[in-house]
């Protein structure tokens, strides 16, 4: 168990910096996590993805895959990679304050 401080608030995270408890998340924290990962500022398109990820996680208990994001978030996969370089599903999950997507087995 690790503790990191985002936006002045100490939170428990996994070793890669994903929040353990999505309930501790705030929008301020999202901006801080994004900045720490090289994304600044968060645009409306970023927020659209972040809110979609969060809503989906809170509703189903798991984070959507990249293909599901591309189909349902309203943001195509190509743009997801521009918004969240390298791995959009993981990075957007981290900024959205939800646990790391567990590639379903």
């Amino acid at each position, binding site marked *: 168990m690790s503790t990191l401080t985002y936006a002045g608030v100490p939170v428990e995270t996994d070793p890669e910096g994903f929040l353990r408890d999505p309930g501790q998340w705030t929008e301020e924290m999202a901006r801080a996590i994004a900045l720490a990962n090289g994304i600044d500022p968060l645009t409306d398109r970023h927020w659209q993805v972040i809110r979609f990820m969060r809503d989906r996680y809170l509703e189903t208990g798991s984070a*959507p895959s990249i293909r599901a994001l591309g189909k349902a978030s309203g943001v195509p996969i190509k743009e997801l990679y521009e918004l969240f370089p390298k791995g959009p599903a993981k990075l957007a999950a981290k900024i959205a304050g939800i646990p790391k997507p567990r*590639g379903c087995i």
Partner: protein
Amino acid sequence: MAGAAHPLPMAPRIVILGGGTAGTLAANRLSRRHGDAVEIVVVDRDDRHVYQPGQLFIPFGMEEPEAIVRSRRKQLRRGIELRLGEVDRVQSAESTVLLADGETLEYDVLVVATGASLQPEETEGLTGPGWGERVFEFYSLPGARALHDALARLDSGRLVVAVLDMPIKCPPAPLEFAFLADWHLRERGLRDRVQITYVTPLDGAFTKPVASEHLAGMLERKGIGLETEFAAARVDGETGRLISWDEREVPFDLLVAIPAHGGADFVSRSDGLGDELGFVRTDPRTLRSKAAENVFALGDAADLPTSKAGSGAHFQGETLVENVGRYLEGEDLAGSYDGHVNCFIESGFHRALFIDFNYEVEPLPGHYPEPHLGPLALLRESRINHLAKLAFQPIYWHMLLPGHDIPGIAPQMSMAGKHLTATEQGDTQ
């Protein structure tokens, strides 16, 4: 009343969509439990039931296509009707299924067991130039047969085995393919002329940490390259390149792709039934769909957070039958499915691994089903595991599909015989 909201007829009608592994074992278990007290109708588009685990062996000439196909009807108990037809949509508000030929089937209980389907068109270029020439798949009988011929022609170059997206049916199958390809090429004396690379969107060889580490070690020992976190964007079959969304490239001479999977097409046409990939939104413990109280789902068709595998459908069978019974009696459902799945992993050279896990517990080393005795070795290669995999086809036709429990194999996963490792215990560090 927790179950049936309206008075049910004397012999309620249970309609089961799909006559594959899950639909067949569900139909037979329901028939054995209720006899003539229910009417059971299974709907499928054809009468060919394929033993899907056999498809892996076809490219290597270790299995013949016709040896793994039987009549769907003949796997169903007497009294169960098999209706051939295409499903247009489920109208769960009216408790009806609309068939493509215009007929409407009414049901008291619906069980969706239409599995997962291949969606090669989801990946740009996959079915374009080179498809069937140097780009193949082995998740269908025609695909596996075509790959057999291509593999026989391969004498040098780059063989790439690529999982294009998750979830897929039988997640170990692509790894097994890579292991068997290594063996096959060694037998032909060509292994030093063919480079093999395994490409996956996951961050390791497998999804769960202990098994992933073990399997990555096996790939390394066999000299198979591993490319992880590769989210495939497109295939260029003309120049032989697999390209990711973040513009990484893997060159190939022969690509064995595992296409993206989705649910059956009708699921997306049915209001409220499926998620964006067409899998049925299902309660992971009770197997009741989230669309309606008289709709259930099992097997690959359901969006359960566990592996899509025949063993999963088998272990779900008991919970499904129990809960359909409870619904018909107006009782609360049992939340008894724990995500239990187990799989053989063929590793070549007449050996295989065996893994056993559920929603909470990842595959661990040990013995199964009896602690210390086995006879199956968990997460370790053995000859007995391989012999058990070969012996499984008759068990599939004669025990699993008829809906019998397999002696000594409980539907719920057991921790007995599993060794907790440092990784497992140290998860929180």
